[in-house]
Structures are given as structure tokens and as C-alpha cells.
């Protein structure tokens, strides 16, 4: 039990020093010493609650994606039937109750319609994304399948995450973390950002830009009451426009979506000195825009952003170059923000912020300072108690404790773990509880000596008998730690990491290493009596 062959000692010291050395760059960082840049530099990450920064949890509304899909389907169906040769006449189109249905004017068209719909019901990888049924002889009902909805949700979240990433990059913040979480959520963490207003307002923008013709036949009083004529829909003006509070009816179909942009840039209109956003369409968008403006010269169209009207300029002449200007009572900032949002693409779905945590850098720095101070005082008190109680054995526990903290820090740096504010509490608890193993062992040695055992036998029995309880206690603690890890979000997870890694380093240093030191001393000094 007390025999330590050379290879074992080398191995144990190797593990201890390797883990402890990993902690040096982090310690140098805390002490403000420059770490040589040509050496590896593993660092313990500081959580946002210590480093300062913003954490946002965004959630997409799955219903919106479903609704959007039905709407897209409606458009495809209308186009397919219109372009069929001969044209298939349909009516009574509806997208309620999670299904899209329409009536064929003539039941004879059923087979032709079915044939046309077949390709659009199939998704990628030949999964069936829609089911088609015919009721009452000539009503066709398209129901999205679960696989189809899942695929759509997945696509939307993939591209939403990408859009979020592009927008944050445009803001020029450093090292943001953007991760998809679960089915409908995205976690955004931006260290060092203590005023997330700009970020929040940018992420809150769906940036769905639409150009639609104003319905000039609508009755003004109906429009203000929110009632749209058939084929039209009513949108309110954006709050910061001069017409705020009023609404406008626009034609539902035949407009252009802003997806086909190649560039958006904030600028100033030289004629009236107003802030505007200049956009450039790609070839497809440019052609559509040219067609729209050519066919409707002299009429007003509405520029709609996220279901709010920015402005309703009149089309003075056909715009053929694919360039256009968006006016809408912008400030320089809001014009810039819109340009960023348009450049990064529209979000395929609205994102709501369901959790936000922001910590200012001062508070984080203060927490670290106070945490370190408390940790040092606490360690000194623990060390004083141990040395006063167990003499030489207390000194061994102290050395073990020092290596314990270094290894814990080193392993955390090595696995790139994050130290959070509760993690600091975890360090303190680990320091206070790590010596429990030594207390158990030392008390047992005391007991065995009192019962008259010889020194070597007492130490041997002490380590052996105490090990069982130490093993059981640490394993159950490990189980509780796993529950903690599974439960925890962010900061609490940091607490769990420290506690769990600390269990391993505590047992390793407190039991294995001290046994090696104690046995080495016993072999060298061969004491007849020990003070314990």
C-alpha cells in the first residue's frame, strides 16, 4: 500500500505537473503578466457574468413558418394553374386550419391538376412534404406532412442562424457565439457588449422588404377601419413616418419581394437632403422591378418593411437599371441599420427575444476581484486549520490543496471550460471540501494510533479504511454534479463543471499524491511515533 515504484511516482508527478502547467497562462493573465506569444496559451474562458457582455435567446414562431409555407403554396398553385395549357380555372382558395385548399371550376381538370401539383409536393430527398386529397368531387386539399413541416422548420432555422450571424458580424462585435438550440431557438452571446440595444433592434427586424401597388379604389374610411377590398390588404404606416397612425390598402399580388437584392447602402438624397437607403437588385429582381414600374407609371406603390409602410412614392418613370431608392423618414442611424439588415438578408421567420442577460464590464471585474479575495482568505483559513490540527500531515494536505487548485484551473483551461460567477463559488467549495479526504484519512490514522497500532500500520489502515467512504462520497457527489450539469444553463453549468472536475482533482491530489508523499517520508525517516 505504501510502496511506490519509481515508474508510478514519475507517472503521478507527470500527470500533476502537466495539468498544473496548463493553469500558468491563466494565472499570468490574472496577474497581468504577459505570456510569451510563442508558447501555447490555453486560457480559462470567463463567462459573460464575469467578463461582461450580452446573452440573448431568440425564439422563432413555428406557426409563422407554417403559415408562410401555406402562403407560398397558394402562390405556386395559382401560378401553376394559370400557366397550365389550357389554363385551369380555380376559385375559393383558402389557407385556414393548417391546410391549403381550392375549388376546381371543372371536375374534369382533376387529373391534370394532380399531375401539375405532383412535383411541388415532393421535397428534397424525395420525402413527401404535402398530402393531396380530393373532397366533394372537385375541392383539392393540400395538407403539409410532419416530415415536410420539420424540413421547413429546419431550413428556416438554418438560414435564420446564418442571417443572425451576418448581422452581428456587420455590427463589428468581436467573437460572438451563435448556436442553434433545440428546434426553434438560437443562442447569441457577445462578450464585451454591455449595451445590446443596437443588437436587439437589429435582430428584432425581420427585414422583409416588399414593394406593392397601392389600391387606389379602396374607400378611405374602410381602409382606416382596417377593412380591405377583395384582393387587397391593409398595412399601417411605420411609427416614425409623417403618416404614422394611418393605413393604406395595397394589392396583395403582383408585388416584388426584396429577396433579390445584391446590395443596400445608406445614403443621402441630394435633391432633398433626406436619409435614404439605396438598393441594387440582382438580374431577376431588376427585371421584375422594371416590369412593375413600366406597367404602373404614374401610380403610387408602397414600400413595406416588416408589414409596416415606410413610404408610398409615385412611380415617375420606369426604373430599368435595377437600382432604387427607399425613402422613409430615416435618421442616419436607422437608414444604416436597415441597410445592414437588408444586406444580411431577410430572416425567414420572426425572432422574439425570450431571454436576455447583460452584465456590464465593471460588475464582472468587481466580481472577479471579490471572488479572488474571498478565495484567498478562505484558503488561508483552511490551511491554518489543517496544519494546526495535523502538523506534518496538514502540510501535505496543504501542498495537495495547492496542486488541486492548479490542476483544476489547468484542466479547465485545457478543456476550454468557462469560469462563471457561480463557478467561483464552486472553487471555494472545492477548496473547503477537498480536504475532507485528508481529514478522513488523518482522523483514521489518529484513531488507529490510539488503538496502539504501529506507525506504518496505522497510516496504511488509515488510507485503506478511509478510501471506501471517500470513494462512495465522491461518486454520489459526482451523481449530484451530473444532475446539476444537465439542469444548468450558462452560469450554473459553470458551477457544475468546477464541482465535477474538482472531485477528480481533489481525490487525486488529496488521496493519491499525499499517500505518495507520506510513504516517501515514512521510508526515509522511519519514525517510531508521529504527531497527528
Amino acid at each position, binding site marked *: 500500500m505504501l510502496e511506490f515504484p519509481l515508474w508510478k511516482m514519475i507517472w503521478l508527478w507527470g500527470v500533476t505537473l502537466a495539468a498544473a502547467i496548463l493553469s500558468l497562462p491563466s494565472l499570468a493573465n490574472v496577474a497581468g503578466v504577459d505570456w510569451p506569444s510563442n508558447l501555447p496559451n490555453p486560457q480559462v474562458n470567463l463567462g459573460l457574468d464575469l467578463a461582461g457582455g450580452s446573452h440573448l435567446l431568440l425564439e422563432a414562431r413555428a406557426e409563422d413558418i407554417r403559415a408562410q409555407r401555406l402562403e407560398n403554396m397558394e402562390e405556386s398553385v395559382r401560378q401553376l394553374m394559370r400557366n397550365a395549357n389550357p389554363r385551369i380555372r380555380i376559385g375559393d382558395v383558402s389557407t385556414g386550419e393548417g391546410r391549403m385548399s381550392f375549388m376546381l371550376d371543372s371536375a374534369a381538370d382533376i387529373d391534370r391538376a394532380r399531375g401539375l401539383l405532383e412535383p411541388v409536393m415532393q421535397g428534397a430527398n424525395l420525402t413527401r412534404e404535402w398530402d393531396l386529397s380530393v373532397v366533394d368531387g372537385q375541392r383539392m386539399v393540400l395538407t403539409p406532412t410532419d416530415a415536410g413541416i420539420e424540413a421547413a422548420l429546419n431550413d428556416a432555422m438554418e438560414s435564420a442562424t446564418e442571417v443572425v450571424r451576418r448581422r452581428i458580424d456587420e455590427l463589428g462585435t468581436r467573437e460572438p457565439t451563435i448556436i442553434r438550440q433545440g428546434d426553434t431557438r438560437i443562442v447569441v452571446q457577445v462578450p464585451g457588449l454591455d449595451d445590446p440595444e443596437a443588437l436587439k433592434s437589429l435582430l428584432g427586424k425581420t427585414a422583409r422588404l416588399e414593394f406593392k401597388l397601392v389600391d387606389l379604389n379602396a374607400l378611405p374610411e374602410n381602409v382606416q377601419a382596417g377593412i380591405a377590398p377583395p384582393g387587397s390588404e391593409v398595412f399601417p404606416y411605420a411609427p416614425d413616418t409623417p403618416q404614422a397612425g394611418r393605413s393604406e390598402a395595397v394589392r396583395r399580388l403582383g408585388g416584388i419581394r426584396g429577396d433579390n437584392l445584391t446590395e443596400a447602402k445608406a445614403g443621402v438624397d441630394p435633391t432633398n437632403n433626406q436619409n435614404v437607403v439605396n438598393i441594387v437588385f440582382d438580374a431577376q429582381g431588376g427585371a421584375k422591378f422594371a416590369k412593375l414600374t413600366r406597367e404602373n407609371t404614374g401610380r403610387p406603390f408602397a414600400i413595406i418593411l416588416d408589414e409596416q409602410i415606410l413610404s408610398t412614392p409615385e412611380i415617375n418613370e420606369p426604373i430599368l437599371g435595377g437600382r432604387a431608392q427607399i425613402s422613409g423618414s430615416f435618421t442616419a442611424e436607422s437608414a444604416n441599420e436597415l441597410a445592414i439588415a437588408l444586406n444580411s438578408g431577410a430572416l425567414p421567420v420572426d425572432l*422574439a427575444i425570450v431571454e436576455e442577460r447583460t452584465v456590464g464590464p465593471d460588475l464582472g471585474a468587481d466580481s472577479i476581484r471579490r*471572488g479572488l479575495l474571498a478565495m484567498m482568505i478562505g484558503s488561508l483559513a483552511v490551511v491554518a486549520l489543517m496544519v494546526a*490540527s495535523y*502538523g506534518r500531515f496538514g502540510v501535505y494536505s496543504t501542498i495537495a490543496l495547492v496542486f488541486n487548485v492548479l490542476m483544476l484551473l489547468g484542466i479547465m483551461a485545457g478543456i476550454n471550460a468557462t469560469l462563471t460567477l*457561480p463557478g467561483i463559488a464552486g472553487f471555494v467549495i472545492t477548496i473547503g471540501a477537498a480536504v475532507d479526504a485528508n481529514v478522513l484519512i488523518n482522523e483514521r490514522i489518529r484513531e488507529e494510533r490510539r488503538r496502539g497500532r504501529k506507525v506504518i500500520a496505522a497510516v496504511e489502515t488509515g488510507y485503506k479504511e478511509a478510501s471506501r467512504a471517500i470513494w*462512495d462520497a465522491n461518486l*454520489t457527489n459526482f451523481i*449530484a454534479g451530473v444532475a446539476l450539469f444537465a*439542469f444548468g444553463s450558462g452560469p450554473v453549468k459553470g458551477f457544475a463543471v468546477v464541482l465535477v472536475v474538482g472531485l477528480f482533482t481533489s481525490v487525486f491530489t488529496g488521496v493519491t499524491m499525499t499517500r505518495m508523499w507520506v510513504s516517501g517520508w515514512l521510508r526515509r525517516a522511519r519514525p517510531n511515533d508521529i504527531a497527528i
Partner: protein
Amino acid sequence: MKLLKLVPDDTNIKFLKLRVPFFVLSIVLIVGSWAAVLVNGLNFGVDFAGGQEVRLTFEEREQAPIPGLRELVGGLGYGEPVVQEFGAPNQVSIRVPLPEGTEDTPGAATEIGNRVIAAIGEEYPGARTDGNDTVSGKVAGEFRDSAILALLAAMVAVAIYIWVRFEWQFGVGALFALFHDVSVTLGLFALTQMEFGLQIVAAILAIIGYSLNDTIVVYDRIRENLKKFRKMPLPELLDLSVNETLARTIMTSLTLFVALMPLLLFGPASLFGMVAAITAGLFIGTYSSVYLAGPLLIWMGVTSTSFVPQESALDRQEKIARGEA
């Protein structure tokens, strides 16, 4: 050098003589705690209740304008805010609840958060925002569910482990002691109305771990003594085991206590609740290991033969090593 001995050698305190009164006390504590939780309720922070909590520092003032803030934020129409000093006299935390009926609106909490911060910035331009937590009703609900799940899972998992390593009576005894610890900690939070959030649940999970430490050390000694002293009556044997491990119990509780104290006194204000919970749990857990986990074994009929039929290979090895077999 004379070494410090906190507990004299060979103590023989009759802990178990008072087992019935202390058991009654424990039951009263458990029932009282749950009554307090039901009557007072827990003062859920934003983590569990949803809403917004913002921390401010008034750098140009000695004292934060607490009544003014209460009026300002209360006037926004989101219900009565909780405004209290946090850390220093010129620092405050303001908590705004989620208005009823907005639990399911994803962006409602953020909306409120933005308004509150804007209003404070207008009225007190010198105030520095140190932190802001905004949690929607849905996320708060998920936190509540996962907290309950984690506590139950942790308790059941460790009880099963102890059952496997010891005997079923020990598993039940440990589980009951843990239930006591968790209940009393919850009761304390219900009584003091200290804010109850994610960190406190983390603290309770840590308490579960460390209360078990004590329980296991005592159980391990009971198991050892059961094999050693076949004829000794159980109450006497439990007393012997508790006394034999008393020095360790006191010493370990003390080292953890002296490590936690500075953190409680000088540590970051945001950790106070968590550290206070762990410190309280330290005492509650030690008490329950001695007065609940032990006596329960008597009532569940543990005898000196409990470990005989299922003697494991490991135990036999130990016996051989001791020369008993």
C-alpha cells in the same frame, strides 16, 4: 508542537438517546417548511417568475434614490416593482414582474425591459446599468420544470446508489435525510423571502452532495461496526459510529465553513444568496446525518446480520486482510 484537537479522544456522547424528540423536531421542521412554502410562497426571481431585473449603480450619489425609482418604474404600469439595495448603498436591483396574461407572449419581457431601462435613463442620466436579466414567461416555466426534475433526479439517483452499495434501509434513510435538507432549505427561503432563482437550485444540489458526504461517512462506519460488533445493540452501535466519526464531521464542516465565510462576507453581492444557502445547508446536512439518517436505520430494522448474507467479495477480502476469516 501541540496539535489542535477540536474533539477530545474517545468521546461517548449519547446522541441517540434523544432520537425520538429530535425525530419529532425534524418532522416538525419538514412540515413547517412546507407550510411556509405554501403560505408565504417562494420569492421567485426573474429566472423562475419571468420579467425583468436590472442592476444600477448611481456613481454620483451616496445613496440610490430608491423611493423615486419605485415611483418611476411603478408608474410605467407593469405592476409593483421590487426595488432594493444590492451590494452597496448606491447600487440597486429593480425587479419588474411580468404582467398577467403575457406569460405566453415571447417578446413581452424584452419589451418591458427596454421601456424600464429607457425610462430610468431619461430620469437619471447618471445611473450606470451594471446588469440586466430579462426572462420570458415560457423560458421561466422551462427553468421551473427543469429545476424540479433535476432535484428529484439527483435525490433518487443517489438514493439508488446508496441502496446498491449498502442496503435498502440505508438508501431510504439517506433519501429521507436529503428530503429533510431540501425541505428545510426551501422553508428558510420561504421565511426570509430571499430571492429564489437558478443559483439557489444549484446551491441545493450542492447541499445534496455534501449532506450525503456526511451521511455516507457515518453509514460507512456503521457498516464496519456492524460487522465488527455482532452482539452490540443497534442504538449503542450507532452512537459508537457517530462518536468515532465526530472529529471528522466537525473538522470537515469547519473547513468548509471557514472557506465559505469570506465569500459570504466579502464576495460578490450576486453570490450572496447562493453562498448563504450552501452555508445553511452545511448545518442542516450535518444535523440530518446524525439525527435522521442514523435513527431511521433502527426503525427500519437494520441488524447486525444485515450485511452477512450478501457478503461481497470485497468485504471478504477485507476480512481476510484483517485476519478474521
